[in-house]
């Protein structure tokens, strides 16, 4: 029973995070939620008994892609501020 509750909680969190990432208008917050989405996805892989994929998802999906997207938003902000 606790396993089922955890699975339902993870599924609802995934769907809600995905919805918010797509509909937030502030891109900085959307990237932060995308990183959180990657971490919850890593937990889901653990629940599906695939720890190797969970390790790779946490490192690449949440870490590297999150850093890349944050850099992109930062550069977009700089360019937006440079424009008069």
């Amino acid at each position, binding site marked *: 029973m606790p396993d089922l509750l955890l699975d339902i909680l993870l599924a609802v969190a995934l769907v809600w995070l995905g919805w918010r990432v797509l509909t*937030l*208008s*502030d*891109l*900085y*917050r*959307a990237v932060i939620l995308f990183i959180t989405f990657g971490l919850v996805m890593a937990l889901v892989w653990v629940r599906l008994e695939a*720890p*190797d994929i*969970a*390790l*790779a998802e946490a*490192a*690449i999906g949440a*870490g*590297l892609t999150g*850093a*890349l997207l*944050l*850099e*992109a*938003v*930062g*550069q*977009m*902000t700089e360019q*937006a*501020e440079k424009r008069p």
Partner: protein
Amino acid sequence: MATESSNVTAVRLVARLPARLLALSLSGLIAVLLVLAALDLPDDAGGLTTQVTDNLDQSGVTHPVTAVLLNFRAYDTWLEVGVLILALLGILAVQQSADLSDTGALTDPGPVLTWLSRLLVPVIFLTGGYLLWLGTAAPGGAFQAGAVWGAAGVLLYMSGYRSVTAMGALLFRAAVLVGFGIFLIVAAGPTFTGRQMLQYPLDLAGTLILLVETTLAFSVAIILTSLFCGSQPRRSDASP
């Protein structure tokens, strides 16, 4: 870096209400069909788990996932590294240079980031090495270790050190290609002694897998860090 709430907002294309209802209902229908299909899966996993377990002692490692990735299906892992190299070639083509030495380091990292990176990078390095070694018996392996080491490289770059951008063209190419190259030698070597490609000799299988994993993790780390550093503006582009 971006401030608390950036003034970069997404452009919203708002369709009419009937179109949105149609999209929502179609997505809901696909979701319901996927859930029904998932519930309909047989309880017995089936697949090739029995064959993998039967041949595990001949593969040189004791973890079934690593045995599949680096022995039974080593061809796929080898070509995945080739795909990563192709992605790096795309970045280099956009930068129009053979290496990343023209990319400047980030300035003004701040005291917290500097202190944190000095604390974390050795631990990340150790964790990646541990994951690499552990891959033979437990979850871990080359790509996981390479991704963790790549994160260390990105953290170093964000803290003001040049990391992979300090390498000249020759060293950069050697570091990127060593994983693919060693795998090529290990894959093509058996063909010279009368075996098939990628047919490791049984007594050397564990050693060869460890050698291939180490060079693979190193190359993957260099490539992943370069994918991040290569998207930074070049020093020669900076306006005076």
